């Protein structure tokens, strides 16, 4: 029989805390879909580690046959910690460069700009230590731009948020770490260079 392990369960939040997290993520999604990237940057810590593991079709290990670990998503990821080849491993400077580029008329792949609509859901607080919160969320992002077929981006974000003390506005958190797990091995998407 299987049992659910402790590290797999979300922390029991108060309704207020859950609503604060949802409010933050919905606000963030709205900024990104409205192309208010400069305001989005204000939600990001200058010390952010922003990464996107690559995902490969792995050889299943026969010795793990019959166990959940056989199909663990983690086996498929070449993350920033690994000696593989992650798709992105960026700092605040990289994100700033992406934001600056967006507001130049010669950012050709998105000029005219792409249209995006994202749904962020399944927001779970996984742990809380002091002001630091580990939160996972899922997203679906619909993306269209001239000359390109519309595509659906699907993935998960594993965040570390920091609560901003004394900040009672909607953006009461800062994104301190973000790892974006995309649901693709072959990248049949126009770009993975968006702000997810």
């Amino acid at each position: 029989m299987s049992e659910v392990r402790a590290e797999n369960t979300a922390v029991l939040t108060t309704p207020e805390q859950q609503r604060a997290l949802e409010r933050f993520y919905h606000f963030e999604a709205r900024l990104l879909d409205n192309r208010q990237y400069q305001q989005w940057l204000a939600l990001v810590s200058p010390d952010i580690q922003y990464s996107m593991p690559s995902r490969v079709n792995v050889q299943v290990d026969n010795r793990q046959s019959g166990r959940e670990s056989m199909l663990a998503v983690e086996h498929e990821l070449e993350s920033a910690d690994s000696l593989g080849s992650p798709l992105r491993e960026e700092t605040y400077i990289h994100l700033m460069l992406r934001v600056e580029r967006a507001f130049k008329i010669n950012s050709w792949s998105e000029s005219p700009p792409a249209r995006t609509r994202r749904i962020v859901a399944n927001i779970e607080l996984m742990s809380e230590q002091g002001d630091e919160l580990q939160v996972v969320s899922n997203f679906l992002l619909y993306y269209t731009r001239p000359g390109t077929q519309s595509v659906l981006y699907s993935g998960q974000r594993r965040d570390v948020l920091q609560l901003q003390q004394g900040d009672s506005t909607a953006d009461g958190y800062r994104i301190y770490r973000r790892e974006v797990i995309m649901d693709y091995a072959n990248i049949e998407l126009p770009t993975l260079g968006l702000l997810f």
Partner: protein
Amino acid sequence: MRIADLVNADASLIGRRCWSSDAVYELEKKGIFGRTWLFLGHESQIVAPGDFVQAYMCETPIILSRGMDGQVYANINSCSHRGLPVCRADHGNTRRFVCPYHSWSYSVEGNLVTIPQEKELRTRPDKSQLGLKSVPRLESWRGMIFGSFDENIIPLDQYLGDMRFYLDAFFERFPQGIEFMGAPHRWVINANWKLPVENQLGDVNHGAFLHAAIIPREAQDKIAELGYSVVTQPGHGATFRLMPEGAPVDDVAWGMEAMGTLLGGNEVQDYLREVQARAAERVGSVRARMKGLTYGIYPNLSFLWSNTSFKVSHPRGPGKVEYWSWAVVPADAPAAIKKILRSNYSSFFGPAGILEQEDSEVWSQQLLGSSIDFADDRPYYYGLGLGEEGPHAELPGLVSVTANEFYARQFFMRWRDDLQAVEDAL
């Protein structure tokens, strides 16, 4: 439609159907992908016996593996019984590849080992004749493994020719050579396979325009001032800056100007300075001053020295490409430095690259222009700098400024000849 109608004598005019015609693509399979050396992988990817990675030769799936005898093997990933791929993982280590359909199993070298249902039958097939189809020619140079479907192709050394001089300018800087990090990024783009190739073969000229949002004007001016474009033989080429003698080490050293390095701190910067300090003794004084940009090896292998990535443009029909790219690092660098150097590739190139997102956009847009009707009387103009290339005292091959599009004309002259050879034999 004849190939001669698509590419004129000096290849200054290139027809739109070169990029979009099914018939042309079928000729490319026979005349190019069936007759050239195609890049399969690097020895650093298959170190231990049983290690394997997947590869492609055009659209044909290949298993590249290290046999139990330590030798490298390349076999077509298709079961001799019903044709299914027998290897389903991108990479790994195994003793057997097993077909899902009837469990025929193959050794890592490609030999057929078991036919489970044969014990119920009186006749026994000759298993020695039923292994995976092997790639007829397989050779490697500096750890780079190539295969060819042409049994009579010239040796790889000879095929690479003077490109070895330029490749060694990078490879030989490092006592233990280079290593490929992790699995390739595989990006599916609606584009013809030749345009990413052309882009990396010598088209640094687009940087000042397409990438003006990111690359500062001064950096582009420097490339125009110090840059060279070289064609060692049609289809093979290199672009690089030749830094002035006595230039400061930080200006000459590979990787110093990249963002990961700039943000990475002293350890990585000192490592790159140290590499540069030994460069003259390792690769000679001329090549020590080379600061590479883009390389191309006919037909579809590219090396982006500036951001240290190898790339292969795998066709998927005339209008689609599976563009593979690997982060490449010096094999002897400490792990922490390898991680910094790989980010110089992924932040700017590959599927998430801030620069390459504009490239993939224009490659797709070019396919639109190549697919339209009523404009076949207006082939693309490839005549920039026609005839301005010539020999150079220190650099093998034809040499010119980077704005000269002779690298693309030379590619298309070879391409035309390769396709005409098939056409003539029909």
